[in-house]
Structure formats: structure tokens, C-alpha cells
């Protein structure tokens, strides 16, 4: 009897283990920033079991100020990353073979927010002012915009002075800069929460200025995409992720709660995340997950015309995106 029980135990363990290993394909996703509603689609897909339904065991790695997703991918720490297209194309040109496999964000949330009292009413008024810019690979859209306007960024006469903005909004509160970089879903609301009112501010959306570039997209390694099985796995991942994004648009409050549940730092608040979720949903609306070649072309053109001494990219990229994954997912 004892022997029978032991035998059964061994068989059960072997069977369960084998079954689990066979059924669930592992995927590691590296986010671009800390856990927040910007990545709600992935957290929803995980917590609601959409990935599991697709036969995937997905690990989500939060990002942060010191994490460059392309580097994580190059180092083998992830299968797929969230990255903005300008940084992805720049990294590709530097030898990290990133390929866009999907584009959940249809619209750009990037803005430059200025104090009205600074006298700035239009981009023509930027000259002589101090502007806050994120760096670490996030500065490309700004550089493209300034190049488009013909404004130098080295602080010389007739140009603008640029300060490296931390990941907060202090420069505009402390009046150390007339304008700072903000996202529609994050820093802008930090400014509002800090006491400045919408009527105290003048905000320029990159989209309105014609210099918006594609933001949160999914990127994988060109090398790995040569494997049809990997493409198929990515197809399942993208399909389930988009299902998560659809669910988040239909259930913003619940989606925000899911994000909060996944925030291990405890730094996020419900108010901030619910509001962020509302703004993020405006950016993903209308996206099936497939990258629109026209959007890609606009981004590339913007980056190429950002000339000057340090262009974001120096030549038209080749093979920087593929529809193979969204095709495999049956996404049109």
C-alpha cells in the first residue's frame, strides 16, 4: 500500500510537471517605466487570465529611471520590450536589432507645458527661455521639434536653454524653467495636483505641432523573429495583450485597481491611476495592435529631418518593423 502511494505520488508529480512545462510557453516582457496605468493592458491580460488562455506564462518586469529596455533585450533579459519608436530606431542604428512587432499606442501623449506668465503663447516664443527635457533616450522627439523650428538647443543667443529634467515637475513649480516636458497621462496632472491651474498653463501637444512620434510599441529581437515558433508565440502574446487593452478601455476603474495591485512599491495612488487610465485609453483607442505603415513613415520622416549636429537617425531604417506577428495573431 505504501509502495503504491509512493508510486502514485511520483507519477502525479511527473505528469503535472510535464503537463505544466508543455502547456505554458514562457514570455518575459520588459516595461519602459515603473508600474502604472501606462502598462495596464499587460497587467489586465495577466490578471484576467488572457495570457493563460493563450497558453502563455508571462513575466512582467517593471522599468524605471535606470533601465533602458533595449539594453535588457540585448542582454537576453526579456523576449519583448515596451519602447518608444525614436529610441528603438536610434538603438537599432547603434547595433541593437530591435523590430517593432506591434503598436498598442495609436496616439502620442507628449507635451511641453509652460507657465502662462512666462509670456509664451506659441513656439516662436521659446527663444531665450529655459525648457526642461527628459534625457536617457527620451529626448529625441524634443530634439526633432527644435530642429524643425530651427531653434538651437545649446543655450546660445536666439536659442533655448535646456535643462535635464528629473522625472518630476519641480522645475516649473520652482520657476527654474519656463516649460517642462509632460505626458498627458502623468506629469501634467502632477503639475495640476501641485497647485497650478489649467488656466495658468499653456500646453503644446507634440501631435498638434506635427512632430509627434509613435510611443509605446512592442519590440523583439530580429534574430529571434527568424524562428517561426517564436513569431507564433509573440502572436499569441500580442493578441492577448490587445484583449487586455480593450478590457481596460471598457473597464477603466477596474483596470486601474489591477495596476495598483501589481504595484509593489506602494507609490501609486488610486486617484492618480484612475485618471491616468482615462488618459491612456485615449491613446490606445483605435489601435488593433497593428502598426500603421503611414504612422511609421511619419515618425521616420520626423526623425530624419531632425538634422543639426546630432541627428536622431542618419538614414532610413530597414527591417525595423514587421507585420508577421500581428498576421500570426490574426490581427488586421
Amino acid at each position: 500500500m505504501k509502495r503504491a502511494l509512493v508510486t502514485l505520488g511520483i507519477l502525479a508529480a511527473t505528469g503535472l510537471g510535464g503537463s505544466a512545462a508543455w502547456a505554458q510557453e514562457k514570455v518575459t516582457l520588459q516595461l519602459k517605466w515603473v508600474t502604472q496605468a501606462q502598462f495596464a493592458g499587460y497587467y489586465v491580460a495577466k490578471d484576467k487570465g488572457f495570457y493563460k488562455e493563450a497558453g502563455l506564462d508571462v513575466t512582467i518586469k517593471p522599468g524605471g529611471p535606470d533601465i533602458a529596455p533595449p539594453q535588457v533585450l540585448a542582454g537576453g533579459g526579456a523576449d519583448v520590450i515596451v519602447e518608444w519608436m525614436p529610441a528603438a530606431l536610434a538603438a537599432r542604428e547603434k547595433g541593437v536589432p530591435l523590430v517593432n512587432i506591434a503598436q498598442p499606442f495609436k496616439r502620442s501623449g507628449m507635451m511641453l507645458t509652460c507657465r502662462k506668465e512666462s509670456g509664451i503663447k506659441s513656439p516662436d516664443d521659446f527663444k531665450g527661455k529655459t525648457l526642461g527635457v527628459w534625457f536617457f533616450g527620451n529626448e529625441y522627439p524634443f530634439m526633432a521639434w527644435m530642429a524643425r523650428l530651427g531653434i538651437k538647443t545649446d543655450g546660445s543667443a536666439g536659442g533655448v536653454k535646456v535643462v535635464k529634467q528629473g522625472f518630476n515637475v519641480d522645475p516649473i513649480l520652482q520657476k527654474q524653467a519656463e516649460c517642462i516636458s509632460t505626458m498627458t497621462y502623468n506629469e501634467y496632472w502632477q503639475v495640476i495636483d501641485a497647485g497650478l491651474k489649467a488656466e495658468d498653463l499653456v500646453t503644446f501637444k507634440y501631435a498638434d505641432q506635427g512632430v509627434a512620434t509613435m510611443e509605446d510599441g512592442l519590440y523583439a529581437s530580429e534574430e529571434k523573429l527568424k524562428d517561426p515558433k517564436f513569431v507564433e508565440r509573440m502572436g499569441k502574446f500580442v493578441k492577448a495583450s490587445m484583449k487586455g487593452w480593450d478590457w481596460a478601455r471598457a473597464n477603466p476603474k477596474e483596470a486601474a485597481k489591477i495596476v495598483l495591485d501589481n504595484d509593489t512599491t506602494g507609490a501609486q495612488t488610486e486617484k492618480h491611476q484612475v485618471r491616468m487610465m482615462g488618459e491612456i485609453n485615449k491613446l490606445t483607442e483605435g489601435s488593433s495592435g497593428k502598426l500603421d505603415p503611414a504612422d511609421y513613415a511619419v515618425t521616420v520622416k520626423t526623425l530624419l529631418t531632425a538634422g543639426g549636429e546630432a541627428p536622431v537617425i542618419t538614414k532610413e531604417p530597414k527591417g525595423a518593423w514587421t507585420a508577421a506577428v500581428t498576421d500570426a495573431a490574426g490581427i488586421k
Partner: protein
Amino acid sequence: MVGLVLLLVGSAAALDYVHRPDVAGAAPGWFWGAVVGLWLFAWLVTARFAAAAPPVAFGRRAVDLIVPVLFGAFLIFLWEVVTVGAGVPSVLMPAPSAIGARIAQAVPTLRDDFVQTVLRAVIPGWICGSAAGFLIAILCDRVPFLARGLIPIGNFVSALPMIGIAPIMVMWFGFDWPSKVAVVVIMTFFPALVNTVAGLQAAGRLELDLMRSYGAGYLQTLLKLRLPAAMPFVFNGLKINSTLALIGAIVAEFFGTPVVGMGFRISTEVGRMSLDMVWAEIAVAAVTGSLFYGLLALAERAVTFWHPSYRRR
């Protein structure tokens, strides 16, 4: 010497081979075997040099120099051969040759970063912090009550995490160099304080009694005996502060800066995947730090020539 020549020829051949287009990134197995052999041979040559004991002073000094140079050069050789031969992505670890090329091409940028970080932040901060520590130490020595009150506070301030202080300094003093100087002052103050306090207590009882028998007052005793006796400690503090100041200024630039500076460049180029530029800045920082420390060591030698540790053994 014959061994050294053979080692140089072997290394040059290996470098030439590994840089061939068809070899880079896909070096064959026998090549790695050859590299290991070359490494063992380098070990033998270095060991032979280290064991040599030339009778003349010049020869002895030459050997003292050759061994670390050989060792360092071979490490760089291995770095180049491994990164190129194994096709290590440059975003993970660029080859020394790529870093060298970047240094040559980016001299104007490296110079601007050096001016901003070292000349505007490190040196002023180091001077202010060390001077403040030194003066307050003398004050504490004169007023024991003050010592009991100030030293614990100095200890407390030195324990504040620099990463927490830096953003606050940016808020108080703005984005440019003043906030970096403030961080450096805070970091360098305490080492200068404790080293000078310890130094002022270094004068022996016998020497103090001698000064008293000469009828010397506090000021004379301080200037002619106690400060000279404290110099080894003071220079210890200055040397510690030279490296702390450089680290402090660079890291302080991670939190809000104008778009120039070593720390700014390092943090932003990492995000841009330009690791060769990051290493170029690191190389400049390392050389700067070493020279700064070296200059202080030379000054220390000149000022404390009398110290027993310099006597010939």
C-alpha cells in the same frame, strides 16, 4: 627580454587576426586555446620580471614600473580580444579600441564635461568642504564644548545619503554647478573634520611640555607644533575627499543638470545605448581622479618629509 618581445609579437598577431571581418564575432576554438597559452606565457614573463632584483636603483624602479604596466596592458588586450572575438554586443561591453576611437572623436565634448564637472564643481566643492572641516576642527580644538556639540552633528550630516540630498540641493541652488558644489561640500566636510581633529591630538606629550617650557602660547604651539604634527592626518582627509568629491559631483548630475557634465553625459548616453561614450567619460574620470590623488600624495610627501614612514629601510 626575449620573452617580452615574443609576448608582444604574439599579442599583435592575435589582435590582427581577431579583427579580420570573417573572424570577428566568430573566433574558432583553437584561437581561444592560443589566447589561453598567451595568457600563461604573459604570466611567466611578468613573474620573471617581478622576481628580478637589479642592483642599481634605476633598474629597481624600472622593474617596479614594468610589472603593473605589463599586467594592465595584458588585461586590456584580453578585453579587446574577448569582446571582438566573441562578438559581444557593444551595448553590453564595447571593445577598448571602440572606446579609444570615441575618446579621440569626442575630445571637445569630453573637455566641456570636464570643465563643468571638475573645474566648476569638484574643485570648488573640495576646497570649500575641506577648508570648512579644517577650520571647524581648529575651533573645536579651542572650544571643547563646541567639539562635543558639533562633532556628532558632523557625523549625522555625513551619514545623509547623497542620492537623497542631491535633488534637494537642485531645488535650493538650481540646476547648474552651485547645487553640485553644495553636494560636494556636504560630502567632504566630515572627513576633513575628523581627520584634522585626530591630527591635532597627534602631538606628543613630550613635545607639548617642551613648548610650554619655552613659554609658547596657544597660537605658537598650534602653528609650530600641533599643525605640523597633524599634517599626515590632514592630507589623509584631503586624499579621501579628492575621490569623494569626484564621485559626488558626478552622481549629483544624475538629478537635474544643464546639458553638459560628466554625470549628465554618463546617465544620458546609457539611455542612448552609447556605451563607448560612457566608458570614455569613465576613463576621463578615472584619470582625473588618479591625477588629483597623485598630486595630493606628492604635496603630502613634500610637506611631511620628516615623517618616519619615509625613512629609508
